[in-house]
């Protein structure tokens, strides 16, 4: 391999700066949620009751498991167990796909009941309910988009590990990708009670 300068500290700090911008992006949406919750509390509670608590809880468990497998994969990389790293990253991808499948089932169910932004049913509904579901689709949709990007990033890490371009001596790419995946988990940790547990 040709010699090249690697700045792990700078690389990691750059990743954290990016994560702060993500926190602000979702933070803005949380403020919007809080302000409307204050104004339309009863509609938010009746909207929350229409969401599938079982699927929401399953997705929380799935994301926590995936965060665990990512954290373990970095530990395995430190210990130079390549096979274990590949297995754990494979499991992470599996959990990520499972999460998106659940999201598909959930959204599909809502669409079948005419619950989606701009639908005839929504246009007849109360303003508070329209806002609740508008926020639900925007926030969980943006989160799912992040998860999809995270899946691609972890998938790329899998192939880089497989071809030894990520190895026990240089695994900052895996470390930073892991940080991104954990952030997706942290955001879901807040989305879950705000949408599924407001009963």
């Amino acid at each position: 391999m040709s010699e090249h300068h690697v700045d792990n500290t700078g690389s990691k700090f750059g990743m954290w700066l990016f994560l702060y911008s993500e926190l602000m992006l979702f933070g803005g949406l949380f403020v919007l949620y809080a302000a409307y919750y204050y104004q339309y509390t009863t509609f938010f509670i009746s909207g929350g009751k229409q969401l599938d608590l079982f699927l929401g809880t399953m997705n929380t468990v799935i994301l926590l498991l995936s965060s665990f497998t990512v954290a373990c994969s970095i530990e395995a990389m430190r210990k130079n167990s390549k096979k274990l790293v590949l297995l754990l990253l494979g499991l992470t991808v599996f959990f990520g796909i499972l999460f998106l499948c659940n999201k598909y089932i959930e959204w599909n169910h809502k669409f079948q009941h005419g619950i989606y932004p701009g639908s005839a049913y929504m246009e007849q509904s109360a303003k508070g309910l329209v806002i609740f579901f508008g926020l639900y689709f925007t926030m969980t949709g943006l989160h799912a988009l992040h998860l999809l990007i995270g899946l691609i990033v972890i998938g790329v890490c899998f192939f880089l590990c497989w071809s030894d371009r990520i190895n026990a001596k240089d695994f900052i790419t895996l470390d930073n990708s892991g940080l991104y995946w954990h952030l997706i988990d942290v955001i879901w940790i807040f989305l879950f009670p705000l949408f599924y547990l407001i009963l």
Partner: protein
Amino acid sequence: MENTSHEHTLSYKGLSFILFLLLVLTGITVAISRVDLGIFRIWAALAIASLKAAFVLLFFMHIIQAGKRVTITFITTILILAMFIGFTFFDIAYR
């Protein structure tokens, strides 16, 4: 421990324990949502969510081991976000 890195991180056992705690907290937050706590329901849910997020940040993301610079900038980000939320509510509550 046979950890070759100079960074102090959790072993598989430690990580498993954190996962166990996170799953228990998820169970508790779902159970609490069934109890009528009035206005405290949302605060209880947010407190548990914050505790879960702290576990992920501390033990999965190793925020402390990332250095003082990351810790300070992270706290600054959270404070700015808190100010953002706080000022919005000053406006809404006393309008």
